[in-house]
């Protein structure tokens, strides 16, 4: 029996709102953020939700309003058929892409026909880290080791000679590309405004970008993890694995790290037969991959995940037209480009999380949608999406337009 492909029929996302009390989406429950994306997806493809085999949603901070399987309740909230079940998964920052890969795997295996995948995170309403976890245990510190991600990012930069100037220049480009993309309407095909109960628009474009930022403004920002790293001594915790690092250079700031935002996204995945009701697919999933690396430096996963995905797809890095490498911290895509020799022109062409924000559980799905739009706008064919993940993991997905 030939293994069927997994097709991507469509993708939608909410605009990303500033993830604080002054953010436009702060007044919206996370379940509503997600339900509005699900509803938009249903309308676009006239989806019979009774035919949806599963709703797979990535969400990192699964507590409070985001606890207790938000996927199931968002589908019900959206008025979907009772027979569209839901599952919420957590692979930290890779959750949104993991949801798509999981959906693609279920479809490609033939177990499912139609799966909706996506992610949600209201960082303004559910604080990052408020779900606790063994990662915070002193006991885990002694047996495994853990430092805040910012310290990891600065360690990565230190080890690979990435300096503050490079990071700020990269951040500026992210802002400029995001601004250009917004001006050109590059996100319009995918963006669905978020509305209040009366239907009033709360937000119809990404809220975070600062088109007016300059390199001087970026240079003036304080390193975010310096006090934590040096004064509180957290840098020391990396010594057990990086004894050669005498001093971590703290280069990451609020300006060259990903922004904290609220957002949701939903992607429609199905097999070829589903096309009869869903219409023309936009892309197919060529390969997926995961990786696990040393957890203290934490952010190196995208390199081996990329290499594994390419190998599975039988492709070389030159076969990929565009890349989305999540801008968790500037050092991550900078190091990734350095390691693979990929030119910056192909990477994050519409800006990334530094300018637009990183709604943890949703980002993977957002990036996939962004890559697909960019391919279509440019008449290109293939894209690879990859993210670094807490605990030292990495994830990648290769898509190809059809």
């Amino acid at each position: 029996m030939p293994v069927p492909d997994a097709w991507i029929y469509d993708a939608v996302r909410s605009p990303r709102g500033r993830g604080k009390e002054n953010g436009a989406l702060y007044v919206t429950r996370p379940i509503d953020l997600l339900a509005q994306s699900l509803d938009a997806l249903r309308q676009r493809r006239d989806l019979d939700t009774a035919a949806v085999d599963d709703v797979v949603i990535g969400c990192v901070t699964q507590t409070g309003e985001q606890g207790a399987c938000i996927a199931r309740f968002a589908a019900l909230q959206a008025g979907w058929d009772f027979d569209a079940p839901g599952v919420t998964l957590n692979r930290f920052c890779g959750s949104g892409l993991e949801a798509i890969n999981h959906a693609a795997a279920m479809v490609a295996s033939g177990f499912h026909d139609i799966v909706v995948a996506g992610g949600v995170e209201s960082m303004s309403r559910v604080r990052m880290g408020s779900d606790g976890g063994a990662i915070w245990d002193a006991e885990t510190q002694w047996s495994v080791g853990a430092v805040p991600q910012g310290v990891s990012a600065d360690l990565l930069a230190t080890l690979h000679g990435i300096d503050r100037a490079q990071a700020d220049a990269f951040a500026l480009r992210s802002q400029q590309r995001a601004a250009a993309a917004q001006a050109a309407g590059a996100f319009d095909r995918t963006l669905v405004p978020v509305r209040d109960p009366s239907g009033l628009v709360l937000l119809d474009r990404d809220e975070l970008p600062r088109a007016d930022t300059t390199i001087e403004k970026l240079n003036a920002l304080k390193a975010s993890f310096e006090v934590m790293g040096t004064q509180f001594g957290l840098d020391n915790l990396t010594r057990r694995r990086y004894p050669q690092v005498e001093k971590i250079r703290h280069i990451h700031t609020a300006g060259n790290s990903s922004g904290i935002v609220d957002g949701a996204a939903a992607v429609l995945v199905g097999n070829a037969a589903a096309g009869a009701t869903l219409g023309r697919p936009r892309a197919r999933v060529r390969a997926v991959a995961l990786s696990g690396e040393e957890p203290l430096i934490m952010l190196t996963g995208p390199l081996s995940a990329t290499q594994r995905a390419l190998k599975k797809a039988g492709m070389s890095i030159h076969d990929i037209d565009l890349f989305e490498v999540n801008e968790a911290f500037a050092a991550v895509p900078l190091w990734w480009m350095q390691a693979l020799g990929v030119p910056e022109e192909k990477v994050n062409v519409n800006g990334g999380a530094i300018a637009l924000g990183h709604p943890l559980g949703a980002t993977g799905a957002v990036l996939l949608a962004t890559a697909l739009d960019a391919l279509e706008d440019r008449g290109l064919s293939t894209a690879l999406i990859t993210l670094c993940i807490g605990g030292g993991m990495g994830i990648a997905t290769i898509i190809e337009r059809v």
Partner: protein
Amino acid sequence: MENIVSLQTDSDGVATLLLKMPGRANKINAAFGAALHAAVEAALADPAVKGIVIASGHKDFCVGADLDFLMSADDPAAFLAAVLDLTRLYRRIEQGGKPVACALTGSALGGGYELALACHHRVALGDARVQVGLPEVNLGVIPGAGGTQRLPRMIGVQAALENILQGKILRAPDALTAGFVDALAATPADVLAACRAWVLANPGAKQPWDRADFAWPAPSPLSEEGRNILMVACAMLYQKTSGVFPAPEAVISVVQQGAALQFDRALEVEARAFVKLALSPQARDMIRTFWFHRTAAERHEGLPALPAGADAGIQKIAVLGAGMMGAGLAFLCAQRGYTVVLKDISQAALDAGMAHVRAEAARTARRKGEARAEAEAAAILARLTPTLDDEPIRGSDLVIEAVIEDMAIKHRVTRALEPLLAPGAIWASNTSALPITRLAEAFSDPARFVGLHFFSPVEKMPLLEIIAGAQTSEQTLARSLDLCRRLNKLPILVNDGYGFFTSRVFAAYILEGVQLVAEGHEPVLVEQAARQAGMVVPPLQVFDEVSLRLGRHVLDQAAEYTGRNLPAARQLLIDMVDTHARVGRVEGRGFYQYTPSSRGGFKRAGIWSGLRDLAKTRPVDPVRAVADTAALSRRLLLAQIAEVARCFDDGILRQPRDAEVGAIFGIGFAPNTGGPLAWIDRQGAAGVVAELEALEALHGERFSPAKRLREMASKGERFFAG
């Protein structure tokens, strides 16, 4: 059992439980637990008893666990059962339904203070000699009878961790401020009266953690702020310990875990962690050295002693040389009541030395309160005469010579001053390396010539290495040991030979560090390797502190006396000093670079950037960095181990205890190991011999395993019982 804990109830209904174990102190063991248990149950069962006061019939309240009992435990299940029995007993005391107060008329440490914590109220004698605290981590274990659970709930997580992680011991007045005790009283009778009054006034006493409305002292460990505090505590701990001490690490773990748990089960979590650590090799080795060896050394066990009642005949001491060591010694001797003459040949040096003495006198006196301060400082200074002349030395009973490390100069000084001394006077050299037997050649009676090797800063460093020259008499050693006791120093007694024990081993350590750098190893890895071996100060840092010039001198002097040399290390030191003028911290430039410190002096600011070019340092292979560091750690330890073992062959060491005490308290040898011999025992002599032989093949005969070690390997012997 009645003679361990007695129970007496007065007419007001206050039962006093008097702890008085046979011997001189109350120590927690099975018999103590059983006796206390019986007495507590009796008091609780007696309807006439309204409240309970736990008091001590000894000078101290209770000094903690009976370490003999602890060292004899070997079965985790049986030991856990014993620990949980004690936990339940302490729980019974606080939940028995009657108010319990604790009369701390003397010190309460470790399990003794944990008993105090299980009482509802603690009153201590307001005397600085009364101490309380949880010093368990210093012995490689954690509090095991509720200390990690009760103290944080009482004074807050941050304060509790600061104290438990450092094993801090507080004097009674500070203990009140810190919340370790609830009240102070002026006399032992007042302490007991305050306890009685409190139990009568608080019939419904309940521990905070047993109340329905219990709230953690802010910030709660369960809050986000508390979680951050715990993470920072982990980081700060790692910064200090580089991961070589599991006990303080376990303290943070059980405090954090227990915070979220039902109280009795939280105590169980602590008990299980305690049992694992108490039976661990590290705790055994640390307890042996930090308690048993140290106590034996304090008591001068096995060392020459004066006949009972005899006097050492030392009243007047001449200290020669007013440098840092000489001035410090003069101060110390004067402080302890000796009449002291401090002599130098330079007015400037003498002035600097006296400035040091005055600063020390003022500082010491300040601690005791203004009224007595000036009198005390004045008395110390009155006993101390600075001089450029020889004459004031006349009639001295002891000379401590602390002049420049040069055989000829030391001989000259000895010959010049001997005629001034009192009959029978002792001549002691504070040399750190020169052979005592040869120094004694300039003295008319070598039986009265001895090496007294103090460590710098002498006011702080606890060790005194006493060196017996070939002809030093037992009488001279006994008199020297009397001085040692009066100066409150911890003695080791070794035989003569270049570098004696401590300097030999210390030189092996720091020179190996420089040798590694000279071989092209990344200096940052070398320093980190030393920390990860547990060494208190990494080698390049040591060099900067003592100055590279002195280091080079030591290297050359060692070559002169022992014929051994490290050409690569020597060349690096010469290049550093002569070509690059990098002398050390005093000048703000050494193996490290420095920035001026706000408090004067210099602050380290990383390895000197030019060192890598100079030493042709190889780049670190990131994949191998961890393994390479571990290998360097071994090499730094084994360079010292080889030297320690040779000290047996060369007849330097008289007894194994001195190797442990000398290495740990004198030169900052890895305290996590319990000492060099404990380390050999843990590895097994055969394994150490094999490792040394491999290193010898690669790096030369300084790693050659000593005969003593080979013999032990072939016979499967160890230095200490497991």
